[in-house]
């Protein structure tokens, strides 16, 4: 997949993974992996970027004798998800056009 495209998709995927409940690193990767593969280093960068954009916040919770970082979505993050859904409604129309036209080839 095109790198730039994947980058934009991964941002919203991570946000979606924490939309309904706060989540932590590995769980986010697992939730997203049926749909798109993401390495741990990539996740780190995405989480950092989303945090700087105030789309999520970070907090630590004690878990089995160690600290685990949890991520919580913000309203800006939810807004980004909505923007994505709107943008891609149009993309799906375009896909229908491309797919159908190609069948006629």
């Amino acid at each position, binding site marked *: 997949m095109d*790198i730039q495209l994947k*980058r934009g998709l991964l941002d919203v995927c991570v946000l979606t993974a924490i939309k309904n409940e706060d989540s*932590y*690193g*590995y*769980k986010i990767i*697992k939730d997203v992996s049926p749909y798109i593969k993401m*390495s*741990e*280093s*990539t996740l*780190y*960068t995405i989480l950092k970027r989303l945090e700087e954009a105030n789309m999520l916040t970070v907090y630590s919770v004690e878990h*089995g004798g*160690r*600290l*685990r*970082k949890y991520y919580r979505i913000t309203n800006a993050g939810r807004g980004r998800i909505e923007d994505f859904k709107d943008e891609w409604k149009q993309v799906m129309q375009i896909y229908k056009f491309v797919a159908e036209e190609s069948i006629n080839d």
Partner: protein
Amino acid sequence: MTKNEFLSELEKKLSVLPKNDAKDHILFYSEMIDDIMEDGKTEEEAVLEIGDADNVSAQIIKETPLYKIAKEKVKKVAKNNDGAVKTTLIILGFPIWFPLIISAFAVVFSLYVSLWAVIISLFASVLAFAVSSIGCVVMSVYTFIIGNSWAGIVFISFALILIGFSIFIFYLAKLLTKFAIYLVKKVFMGKGE
């Protein structure tokens, strides 16, 4: 490879980064490995899943902005005190290498400043061309009114030529501005993914 082996190898490779940045990354991977193990995998499997310490550190470094790496390197050189000879040589050579470094920075900086100067003057000429174009339109209307249609047509064509120049130079200036901003971004932010 055990978790601690992986983490210390990673720490070694990330030594070019500022200590806090390196620590952040190592904590992140430590936590990740713990979570993978909690999910049912063994320590070996968890480390394998993260990948090669070489690859991981290379990717981390690639995404770090240049200025952070440069800053850390300068810090290290300043701290590096192995041997009185080395230190003495550096001190003695100070009148030579210090002005050289200053002038290198000065050259780079003045090149960058002149780029912006060019951009500003281009935008100024965009304005100048646009204004003279309007002037020609005004003159053209005037000459048409007093009955000299030939002069009127000449003025209109000048107006068109001038506005053409204005638009062309505007896009050129925009392009240069984008380039200048790209240069700033490269130094202060990472090269991206």
